[in-house]
């Protein structure tokens, strides 16, 4: 008998069907990966098991856990199961802990509740559990509050809570999305250990195919509230019986045309998968004619000297588009007493680099290493504490807002959050036209309209979209609008700060293609900020690796990512989930 058997589970909220006849099962000691794009119903499935659904939700079908039907159990019975036999780790480590209770209290609480242990006893067990997840009580006493821990540490506490009583089933709903790749790798490792240790069943939910592939024995693919396919991980992914599974896999590995060759792991991809990728590309590639992109690439290569030479080494003949020298940014420290402050925090520390016109550069690094700060400095949205920034040879540091206008025209930005970067109260026309105020002379109404229409056309949107509000678009469309806004002044450099990390894999693929195409047609240079090495690899020529405010490594993308030299870069590369590599490993394991 399975540990958990979900049969024919349907769920609706306010008459809207959310889940349609979901079937899933998990054996003891098994890891089941549940993948699917955002909103496909993964979390709802998990919450249905916990019986923690929103009030309005109505579930039908059966969820058998260890023989009992959870959907028929009363609340008291569920309370007995939750936390004891079924543990759950939630998506957001930052908010999953009660800020006003110590971590000791929070871990011990469940133990006291279920095991009836005394306070001292429960705390002892809590301490052991925290030790187990890598928070030894010598370094992290039980009396710490959540705000005194980093995101990764908090997630460990959440896992400790969920696993405190050695549950038979652990549900982990996107347990690593809020963490950077290095932390993610650590957490996944921890989960793996816990499963191995006590033959716990694990339902691992993620939209990241690579993560799930790496971790799970079996995989279930979900879309629109339905399970499309279940099976052994390796088989499912290599066979790609269901077209959607294939689409998902393709999108996850998507590289704009011509870029695939740069991967050194190329040969290791199973032939079927590689073929699928190529096919998928042809199928989905309507937006990006590959030949054009290829020709631009060739042109760019020629312009920057012989392949293999770094442009900033060999490109003396070209004036750099952007050159940054000894840039530094200090943030004043928090006040710790009335008369003293903490030492200023140096977010960007002695950074120098140059960007050549028309080339794309990735800026990668762990969370909090100073990437966004550097971007804001380059955009002159913040004043540096030291160093200079030159745009086409002209210094922009210390200029007034009026003097900055030409620079602003030349450098534009695309933000991470395709929704947050638009004022929801303005129409698309006004939003996209916003930077037009930078042009001298400023265009009149008719001219603006024309320019907006053109920009929309360039990103593949229709002119009628001008009269709509941002909320009337999908995430991918919004990101296109955001790009349209960035290119409307014909900038020479576009800074993209995590511009695709919030997007679903399939939409991400489209946007990456768009970036490539714009590069080709308009000759725009990019500074691509990302923590996702797959993205960096997909569309950039060179890469800057940043660590604790400093640039620790730079070079051609493929070279750096395949043969990282610095410690920081090595850690990044090692931790980065890679679908191809994961499939290959699983193939070996599962035969």
């Amino acid at each position, binding site marked *: 008998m399975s540990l958990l058997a979900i049969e024919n589970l349907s769920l609706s909220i306010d008459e809207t069907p959310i889940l349609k006849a979901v079937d899933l099962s998990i054996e003891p000691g098994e890891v089941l990966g549940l993948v699917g794009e955002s909103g496909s119903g993964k979390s709802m499935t998990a919450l249905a098991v916990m019986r923690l659904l929103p009030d309005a939700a109505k579930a039908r079908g059966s969820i058998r856990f260890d023989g009992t039907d959870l959907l028929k159990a009363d609340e008291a019975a569920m309370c007995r199961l939750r936390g004891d036999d079924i543990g759950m780790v939630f998506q957001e480590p930052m908010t999953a802990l009660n800020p006003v209770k110590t971590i000791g209290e929070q871990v011990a609480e469940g133990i006291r509740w279920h095991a009836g242990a005394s306070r001292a006893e429960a705390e002892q067990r809590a301490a052991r559990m925290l030790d187990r997840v890598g928070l030894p009580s010598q370094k992290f006493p039980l009396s710490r509050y959540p705000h005194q821990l980093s995101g990764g540490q908090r997630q460990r506490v959440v896992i400790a809570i969920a696993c405190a009583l050695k549950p038979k089933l652990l549900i982990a709903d996107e347990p690593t999305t809020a963490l950077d790749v290095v932390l993610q790798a650590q957490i996944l490792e921890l989960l793996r250990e816990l499963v191995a240790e006590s033959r716990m069943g694990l339902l691992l939910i993620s939209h990241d195919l690579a993560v799930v592939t790496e971790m799970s024995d079996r995989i279930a693919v979900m879309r629109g509230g339905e399970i499309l396919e279940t099976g052994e991980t390796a088989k499912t992914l290599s066979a790609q019986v269901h077209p959607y599974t294939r689409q998902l896999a393709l999108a996850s590995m998507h590289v704009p045309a011509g870029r695939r060759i740069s991967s050194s792991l190329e040969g290791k991809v199973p032939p079927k998968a590689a073929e699928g990728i190529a096919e998928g590309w042809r199928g989905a590639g309507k937006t990006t004619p590959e030949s054009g992109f290829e020709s631009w690439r060739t042109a760019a290569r020629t312009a920057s000297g012989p392949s293999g030479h770094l442009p900033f080494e060999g490109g003396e003949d070209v004036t750099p588009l952007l050159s940054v020298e000894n840039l530094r940014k200090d943030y004043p420290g928090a006040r710790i007493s009335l008369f003293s402050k903490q030492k200023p925090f140096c977010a960007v520390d002695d950074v120098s680099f140059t960007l050549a016109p028309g080339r794309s550069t990735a800026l990668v690094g762990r969370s909090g290493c100073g990437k966004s700060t550097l971007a804001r400095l380059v955009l002159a949205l913040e004043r540096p504490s030291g160093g200079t920034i030159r745009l086409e040879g002209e210094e922009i540091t210390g200029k007034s807002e009026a003097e900055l206008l030409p620079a602003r025209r030349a450098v534009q930005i695309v*933000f991470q959050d395709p929704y947050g970067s638009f004022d929801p109260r303005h129409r698309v026309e006004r939003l996209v036209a916003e930077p037009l105020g930078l042009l001298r002379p400023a265009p009149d109404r008719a001219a603006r309209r024309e320019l907006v229409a053109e920009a929309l056309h360039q990103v593949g949107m229709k002119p009628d979209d001008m009269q709509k509000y941002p909320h009337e678009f999908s995430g991918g469309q919004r990101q296109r609008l955001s790009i349209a806004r960035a290119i409307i002044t014909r900038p020479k450099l576009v800074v993209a700060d995590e511009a695709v990390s919030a997007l679903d894999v399939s939409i991400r693929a489209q946007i990456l293609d768009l970036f490539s195409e714009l590069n080709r047609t308009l000759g725009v240079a990019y500074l691509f900020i990302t923590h996702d090495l797959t993205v960096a690899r997909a569309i950039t020529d060179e890469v800057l690796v940043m660590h604790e405010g400093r640039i620790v490594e730079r070079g051609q993308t493929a070279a750096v990512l395949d043969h990282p030299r610095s410690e920081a870069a090595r850690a990044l590369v090692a931790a980065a989930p890679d679908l191809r590599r994961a499939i290959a490993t699983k193939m070996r394991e599962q035969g």
Partner: protein
Amino acid sequence: MTYLPSAFIPRDGLSAFLARALASRSFIAGFIVTALIALMALVSFFWTPDDVTKLVVGDRMLAPSAAHWFGTDHFGRDVLSMIMVGSRNSIAVALVAVGIGMGLGVPLGCLAAARGGWLDDFVMRFNDVVFAFPALLSAVMITAVFGPGAVNAIIAIGIFNIPVFARVARAGALAIWPREFILAARAAGKGKTRITLEHVLPNIATLLLVQGTIQFALGILAEAGLSYVGLGAQPPMPSWGRMLFDAQTRMMVAPTQALFPGLAIMITVLGLNLLGDGVSDALDPKLRRRR
């Protein structure tokens, strides 16, 4: 470190807002009540059942009847007419006071949020000082200095509204400023003033609207309180608070005289509060029932 609704931005446009508002029972009830009171005030300019400037002492303190629905007061004036005319006073005082509070407080709050630094500190400290005076006490003091009367009541209540709006506007604006679309606007070369006008204000407008209805309701209560202690509207101008004051000594003889003005105040405030609730419900279902 004060608690205020975090700024919120509706996820969609005006029509959806209206649709949600119309689905909110609070909003509909509040809107109807408020509209009726406003209508009553408007009608009173052209028509009242009786002339409130005319004292007919012979008809004093009549019980409600067909001729005088709500009875008459101690001067023989028709209570219904008094309430109708009094609503003008209540609405005018509260409205202008809220206007003063908004007109000064919102720019102050926006400025503080946009400029930060010492200016922000200054505005916050100014708020602290004003808040340190119990509201009614400062109103009593102001009317004591400048004499009782509707205008001074307006000023007194208005002054207290300034920091309220400054605070709400500042908190709202502070939540808007770090958002990416502001950064985008800055990248588009827009200055702080333009950004405040084009992006910040429209986005906190709804927040201010909700606070506005709350302050409006509070203003009506405050005006009634001031008039009740004789510092608000002066006779012969009818005012609900004064009517209550006049009626309280006659509670036993003519209880309806105290009943109707009290009910008028209560219903108006209730209506405004419901309206405010409804608006915030419609703005963001998560922001329900803040007050």
